[in-house]
């Protein structure tokens, strides 16, 4: 339990009922609080998906601190190095030379030869207007056997055009170069977590005579490069849109968006469109649909009207997910979210109309530091931040949709809800681990 220091703060009007919330930004911007829930991935975790690659961050000490310990906690220090920017590098304007020499020194020191190197630059580079092309040209000249790509840790620029997460997803596939296309290969791109292998998508892809590939399953750099053979890139994570478009332009791979929705008709619709795209008849998913429905019903029988809290880190489409729960009788009392995706508008309006009193809470407003629940009431949380703020040990420990898509995804989530409701988890340990699904020494 949190120990109080100092005077009681005023916490009025931090949380809002749905009826008073505006879309897509329910809360105004200001100072930000960072909750201890850490399961979402960062750029280090994502970059490590490229097999046999090495990461080199060129940043200030304070910025390096978070990334080096991300690598250390995922037992990947052997694939990480850094070059620290100091005051003199900012003042002397020798960034290009400094980077080239620093990266060269790192690569000479390594006990292995990486196939690819991800060079991460920071906000400082943008303010210094350094010559990136020159740096990479020289690095490629010095190390012709290594593929280099530029990656970005630029939180200051998060509101200017592409966000760092969007850029990371583009750069993740930037080392792919054109290859002869094969109809029997289809990629699913842009997700940190691999899709569950029992998902219906596999049946659709198989019916089209193809195999589904993800970067998450590539064991070697060559397998990664072979992703360029796919004729089609599927993506269901909204952040991957620009990556899909980049691949379309560079490699001629077609892009197909599968919205991460939880309504039966919308899932069917997405599958129908994909089947059409692949030129096949949509397989019959009656059984999968029935299983999902049954699992939800069984979960409701166990959970009943226990209050449920959901947070935005659980899934890309939180409002679609909450709507699905509400339509199946669950009592969703609170949503933790700082922002909604534009494509969630229809679900937002539906919830607002039917559940105007549902509470919407921010996760990063400063007052939230003091709004960690301490009550004894049993709450089921779905997502780590919801677990933290509601103070419950009964929670579904999944982030970023967990690779749980379609009817199969609903089936698995319903089962996880049931299991979470019946068995406590070690909240403090689990939610503080970085990069859900990655190796962790914490």
């Amino acid at each position: 339990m949190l120990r109080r220091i100092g005077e009681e703060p005023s916490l009025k009007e931090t949380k809002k009922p749905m009826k008073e919330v505006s879309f897509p930004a329910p809360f105004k911007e200001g100072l930000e609080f960072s909750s201890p829930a850490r399961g979402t991935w960062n750029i280090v975790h994502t970059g490590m998906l490229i097999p046999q690659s090495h990461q080199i961050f060129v940043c200030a000490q304070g910025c390096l601190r978070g990334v080096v310990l991300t690598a250390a906690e995922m037992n990947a220090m052997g694939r990480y190095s850094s070059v620290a920017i100091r005051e003199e590098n900012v003042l002397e304007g020798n960034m290009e030379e400094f980077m080239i020499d620093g990266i060269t020194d790192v690569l000479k020191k390594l006990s292995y030869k990486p196939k690819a190197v991800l060079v991460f630059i920071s906000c400082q580079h943008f303010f210094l207007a350094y010559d990136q092309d020159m740096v990479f040209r020289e690095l490629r000249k010095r190390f012709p056997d290594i593929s280099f790509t530029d990656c970005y840790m630029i939180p200051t620029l998060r509101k200017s055009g592409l966000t760092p997460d969007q850029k990371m997803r583009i750069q993740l596939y930037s080392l792919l170069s054109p290859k002869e296309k094969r109809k029997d290969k289809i990629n699913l791109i842009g997700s940190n977590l691999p899709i569950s292998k029992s998902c219906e998508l596999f049946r659709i892809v198989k019916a089209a005579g193809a195999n589904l590939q993800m970067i998450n399953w590539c064991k070697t750099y060559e397998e990664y490069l072979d992703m360029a053979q796919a004729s089609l890139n599927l993506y269901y994570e909204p952040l991957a849109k620009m990556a899909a478009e980049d691949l379309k332009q560079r490699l001629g791979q077609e892009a197909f968006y599968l919205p991460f929705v939880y309504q039966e008709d919308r899932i069917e619709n997405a599958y129908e469109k994909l089947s059409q795209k692949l030129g096949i008849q949509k397989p019959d998913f009656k059984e999968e649909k029935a299983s999902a429905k049954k699992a939800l019903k069984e979960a409701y029988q166990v959970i009943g009207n226990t209050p449920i809290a959901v947070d935005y880190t659980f899934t890309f489409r939180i409002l679609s997910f909450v709507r699905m729960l509400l339509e199946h009788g669950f009592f969703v009392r609170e949503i933790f979210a700082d922002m909604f995706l534009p494509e969630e508008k229809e679900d937002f309006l539906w919830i607002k109309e039917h559940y105007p009193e549902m509470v919407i809470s921010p996760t990063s407003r400063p007052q939230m530091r003091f709004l960690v629940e301490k009550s004894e009431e049993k709450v089921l949380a779905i997502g780590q931040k919801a677990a933290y703020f509601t103070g419950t040990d009964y929670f579904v420990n999944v982030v970023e949709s967990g690779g749980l898509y379609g009817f199969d995804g609903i089936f698995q989530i319903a089962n996880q809800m049931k299991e979470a409701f019946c068995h406590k988890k070690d909240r403090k340990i689990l939610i503080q681990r970085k990069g859900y699904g990655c190796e962790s020494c914490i």
Partner: protein
Amino acid sequence: MKQVAGLISTYSSDEFGICSALYELGGMVVMHDASGCNSTYTTHDEPRWYDMESMIYISAISEMEAIMGDDDKLIHDVIETAQQMKPKFIALVGAPIPYMIGTDLKAIAAVIEEETGIPSFGLEANGMNGYLSGISMAFDAIVDRFCKKEVLKSTQTKVNILGATPLDFSLNGSIDSIRRWIKNIGMQTGACFAMGSSLEELSKAGKAQVNLVISYGAMEIAKKMEEEFDIPYVVGVPVGKLFAATVEHCLKESLETGKSQVVCQKYKADIRSEKKAAIIGESVYATSLAGEIEQQYGISCEVLCPLETEEMILRSMDKQTPEEDDLMEALEGMDIVIADPLYKPLCPKKASFYPLGHIAFSGRIYENKIPDLIDREFEETGGLR
């Protein structure tokens, strides 16, 4: 090459040193940076984050605010939050981007103080220096703004502890052990900068007769309090039994003479082994540990200090090794290496490596394995595991 870490971790930076030093004092600390620094600090450098409330926030500066030099937004956001949170003070902390665009945090703090009536100060960190300089800036601000010169000296012998943060001492009970040790040598703990003492207690630091400096981050305020409050300081951590006894002796001597001293320059080494050990770490703690090992085990120790320090703290054989390459060179020929586990890749093959976790280097990874070595035989603690 300078500034390259091919194999090892990176120490915590000045921004986070400030946050750590001010954490328990009831103030509102605002890092003026984009989002990211806040989670880095609270995840890796702040073991109190989950269980102890503290108002550490980030301004979440964006590119346009930086380019346009929009200080008004920062001022507005800080005032708005301060009015709700009622902090005892407000500290604005610099970071790389404010440093590059020349944000005047001291002036902004003055505006905020005038508007809110809450003591406010700007601390010019830039994320490009080590955590010890941040601790130093933070403690300096506390002494300047809150410590009263006119307090009466305590009738009992009071010792202030200077330099306590989890970055150097974790939450393994070391600071409580130092308090207990002070009691056992017949003295009282005055203020502890800054774990386990309130801002009010710190404001009365002038009551003490002597300061005990346990981290280099507190060196500046020790000198300031010597000059302004006439309090001598003793630099050393009472690790082990023999070195603790030396620290005790120095404290008592400084009480009598009013002169400051560095304990690691005072003990007599009793070298009985041909082995050579290297200790990598913060200078005050590492030299204290070296003192205990040389007296207790007779093994010659060389301190390799990758962090800010000064000559008076290091002994003649010790070295400042700010770069990975310096360390690799200095470790050649060593038989024993005592260091944070994330230094292990630099350990020569023939040397024995004794891991000694340091939160300022490896964050929370080895947090539960850091032994409390204060005033006890190392064997009692299970040794250096």
